């Protein structure tokens, strides 16, 4: 039983990372209609940068916050390249983000090499209900949950958040009332960058990061996001947590090699079910 509880909490911690990456995808997709394949790169970049800043002697928290801020700026830059030209079709933007994601590999290898990196997180071991887990997993959850609550409040309570939702709901009407849809798109990319960066800095102490770690993150983040049709951050949170728990349980009971396949299988199933249910009619009606 305590084994199971341990796996569960560890899984939730891992899943929080997927949820953060997934909600970043959702934030960008809702406002711009672009699936941002550079989303995982934000996490890798922020993680690598944090390790450098910590090595340089900057304290914890400050290093992590700085890395998240840089990830947000990089998010805006990716946004400018991907949607900056007026009239760029979302499909084209998607390919641009894919290209930028690959470009990020080159930058990361030049700056940080191709070896795995990590940095210490919250030290120590916590005992929860008889299960002993690394305390850092609790920190991940302790940060992720308030971040999602803040996101929910931002979208539902502030005019800026409502304007972002308005762009997601009806881009034409948003232009009619004078909302600058392109600027809102860039803001969404900044948000996506920050959320991706946060995923990176939070999970790296328990999972080493290499330049190509973004693949795992984007596959799982996308699987989490696709559960909510790429439009509902709340569902992305639940999806991410479920994925994390499922994968940890599978690894914990001895089939560790199949972790990523779980995400792929889940994603495929959801997409097939959704395609069968809504079909091309709903797409055309948008």
């Amino acid at each position, binding site marked *: 039983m305590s084994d199971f509880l341990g796996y569960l909490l560890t899984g939730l911690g891992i899943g929080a990372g997927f949820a953060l990456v997934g909600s970043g995808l959702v934030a960008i997709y809702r406002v711009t209609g672009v699936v941002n394949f550079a989303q995982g790169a934000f996490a890798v970049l922020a993680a690598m940068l944090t390790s450098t800043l910590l090595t340089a002697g900057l304290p914890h928290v400050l290093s992590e916050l700085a890395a998240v801020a840089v990830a947000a700026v990089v998010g805006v830059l990716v946004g400018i390249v991907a949607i900056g030209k007026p009239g760029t079709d979302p499909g084209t933007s998607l390919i641009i983000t894919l290209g930028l994601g690959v470009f990020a590999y080159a930058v990361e290898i030049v700056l940080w090499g191709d070896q795995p990196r990590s940095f210490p997180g919250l030290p120590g071991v916590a005992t929860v209900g008889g299960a002993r887990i690394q305390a850092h997993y609790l920190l991940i959850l302790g940060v992720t949950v308030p971040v999602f609550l803040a996101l929910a409040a931002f979208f539902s309570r502030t*005019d800026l958040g*409502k*304007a972002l*939702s*308005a762009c*997601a*709901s*009806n881009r*034409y*009407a*948003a*232009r*009619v*009332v*004078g*909302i600058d849809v392109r600027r809102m798109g860039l803001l969404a990319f900044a948000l996506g960058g920050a959320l991706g960066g946060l995923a990176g800095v939070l999970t790296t102490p328990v999972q080493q990061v290499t330049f190509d770690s973004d693949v795992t993150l984007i596959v799982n983040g996308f699987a989490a996001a696709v559960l909510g049709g790429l439009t509902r951050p709340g569902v992305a949170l639940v999806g991410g947590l479920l994925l994390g728990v499922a994968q940890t349980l599978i690894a914990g009971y001895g089939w560790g090699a199949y972790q990523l396949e779980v995400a792929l299988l889940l994603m495929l199933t959801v997409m097939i079910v959704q395609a069968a249910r809504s079909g091309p009619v709903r797409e055309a009606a948008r």
Partner: protein
Amino acid sequence: MTLVSVSSLTVRYSGATALDDVSLHLDRSEMVALIGANGAGKSTLVKVLSGLVAPASGQVTVNGRLAQVPEGREVFADLSVDDNLRLGGWRNGRRGRDTTAIYELLPALVPLRRRAAGTLSGGQQQMVAIGRALMGRPDVLVIDELSLGLAPLVVEALAGHLRDLHRDRGLTVLLIEQNARLALSLCSRAYVLEAGRIVLDGDAPVLARDERLTAAYLGGHYE
């Protein structure tokens, strides 16, 4: 005072001429209709006035703020009625986004304020779209197809609201309509647009008796 003045406006979409030498004007506190069938170029004119489409030639002058009730209403379906209204005041800055005054103007929206706009009936959505446009505190309200897809009784109720707003507030309205009967009963003047050109204009009571208009738009039975 002339609020909107359009002179010799021509608009082309990749070669095809959508508007050809169109001139019209709109004075403060006037309600003027632009009547035309599908594809006559009405929506193009709205887009030029809102700055969404650039003219090929001609002059467009708008003195003051213009707000648009777009064709098909185009409410923010997932957002509440109140949020739809608030975002109508987006350009005003935070202090200009208080919705109280709109609920006084359109009290029918009060019980709907927490509902998602997408769940409302067509007539209610049109009211939201009008309220959202009024939140921009416009000098000119441009309504693109007030009656499209709405039941006659609903249209009559909306027209009543507009009449009140016009009478009590001196609201200036440019009404773009396919329904000539409605347009002529609501407005004091009208322009008739056909294939991108103004073919007829004048006072509404005169136009209502004009044979060319009654033949084309009113089935000859306008009384």
